[in-house]
């Protein structure tokens, strides 16, 4: 018993470098060997709301996709961008991307390229999607999009004049969009879209954000100002799963190439790593508490 106590006390006083190694391994092994651990993903109500909101849009509707994340948060948010784009393209919805972070421009480019190069969707630039360039100003740009988009943007990222792009006809401000979807990892982000544009002009807004940001965004979700939220990697995995099932169900959809196979997204395979890491942390907490109890009792 004495020995067991000592072991628990030692475990509780574990050097943080050991914790780091164990966490590293718990993430690395499932990532390298995803087939070892396969846990089914259950969707939460917020992810389902996002899907239902986007799914209620009709072919030809216009969706503004705002990119506010960068290299550091790419692993968490990029799978959402890809899944949302897949969903929108599969319904023939017109997509307008706008980056509000300098790196957002590259992220939007990567996401579009990934979806277009899969050849799963019959989409063409300037007909089905257009990429607007980055402009500095954050909230000011949101405000500008809300009031007069043309005063801020005159051309797209390929320097094509907006007046020469067919799908830009009649798009002058936020009211000309049917939906705004925000992919955000900080400021400006979903809260700014609520405050400076969507609430005032009554345009529905949904968002995907990092897990850390969820507590900031959840009051807006609960009040309905943000319609559902994709929260971090689990949110991305859930949305990937819903879209994967949707695409398989609508295989004969006229917007999809029948010859190309539908592949599951990246976030789904990363969820095992996150599951094991979370479980390990809970184990650490239990050990920490046993050790804490034993040392306090000895004193």
């Amino acid at each position, binding site marked *: 018993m004495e020995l067991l106590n000592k072991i628990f006390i030692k475990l509780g006083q*574990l050097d*943080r470098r050991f*914790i*780091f190694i164990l*966490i*590293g391994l718990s*993430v690395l092994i499932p990532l390298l060997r995803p087939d070892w651990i396969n*846990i*089914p*993903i*259950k969707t*939460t*109500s917020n992810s389902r709301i996002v899907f239902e909101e986007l799914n209620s849009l009709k072919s030809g509707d216009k969706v503004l996709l705002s990119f506010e994340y*960068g*290299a*550091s*948060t*790419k*692993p*968490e948010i990029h799978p959402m961008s890809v899944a949302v784009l897949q969903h929108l393209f599969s319904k023939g919805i017109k997509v307008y991307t706008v980056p509000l972070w300098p790196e957002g*421009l*590259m992220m939007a*480019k990567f996401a579009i390229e990934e979806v277009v190069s899969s050849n799963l969707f019959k989409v063409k630039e300037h007909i089905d999607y257009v990429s607007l360039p980055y402009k*500095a*100003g954050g909230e*000011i740009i949101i*405000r*500008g999009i809300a*009031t007069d988009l043309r005063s801020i943007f005159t051309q797209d*990222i390929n*320097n094509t004049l907006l007046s020469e792009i067919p799908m830009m006809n009649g798009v002058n401000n936020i009211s000309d969009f049917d939906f705004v979807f925000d992919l955000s990892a900080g400021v400006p982000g979903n809260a700014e879209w609520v405050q400076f544009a969507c609430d005032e002009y009554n345009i529905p807004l949904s968002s995907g954000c990092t*897990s850390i940001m*969820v*507590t*900031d965004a*959840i*009051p807006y979700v*609960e009040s309905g100002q943000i319609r559902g939220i994709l*929260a*971090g990697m*689990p949110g991305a*995995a859930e949305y990937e799963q819903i879209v994967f099932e949707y695409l398989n169900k609508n295989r004969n959809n006229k917007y999809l190439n029948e010859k190309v196979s539908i592949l599951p997204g990246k976030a789904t395979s990363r*969820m*095992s790593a*996150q*599951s*094991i*890491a*979370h*479980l*390990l*942390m*809970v184990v*650490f*907490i239990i050990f*920490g*508490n046993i050790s*804490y*109890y034993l040392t306090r009792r000895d004193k």
Partner: protein
Amino acid sequence: MKRQLAYFLVIFIGFLTLSGHFINYSPLNNFIDNDATQWFDIISGFAAFLGVVNLLQLHLNKISQKKDNWRYSIITLLGFLIMIFFGFIYNGSSVALGPHLKKEGSAFYWMFQNIYLPLGATMFALLAFFVASASYRAFKIRNFEATLLLISGVFLMIGRVPIGQLIPWWMSLEIYICLLFALIANRFKDKKKMLTLLTLSLLIFPILIFSLNLHDLALFKIPNLQEWIMDVPATAGSRAIMIGIALGTIAQSYRIITGREKSILGD
């Protein structure tokens, strides 16, 4: 005089911006929405040069005076110069300088993809390690509040990931019982009595719940409980902090635009 002018500018621009939100006068609205914000962007843009000058000055000084750890400054300066070179001088692709930044095949694009992206992701990924060590240290059953924090923390951690769905109802029940005892542990003077009671509860309650056919309740599904914690107590707390922050912001802004808060100008 210089100081008085600064105060005057703060007060004048402050009130002008506030009035621009309510008064329907297009030159004023235009100034607030466009001109003033563009001025801020222009000043920030020029300040970027000051930042660069400061960075160069600081690190060149460190190197020339061989201050402590001066070798790191060489790496900083090298990184800075390399990015300048590939951003402004060397292209490496068929497109013109400028658009080459986002053109696959250019040297800058390659560096963005293969150096900047992995480094950024690595720094963010460090959070996982720090969260582990911080939660290991912080989640201790010190008192009632700390125990509540621990309980919700554990439920959120398990409930947020797919592994939470695999936890059967009886195990959730056992976790609840353990946590309940963690909360009331201090009330027991005789620890042996507590242990017996805990063991009995762990054995009896699952049988009781099963026989009453209550095991299908949402309460025993950890992901559902996690969603409830996020939607109700977390939202309530978040809203309370949000309202406090909003009021604090308004009072702080009022102090600044009425010229009472002067410490930003060093007073």
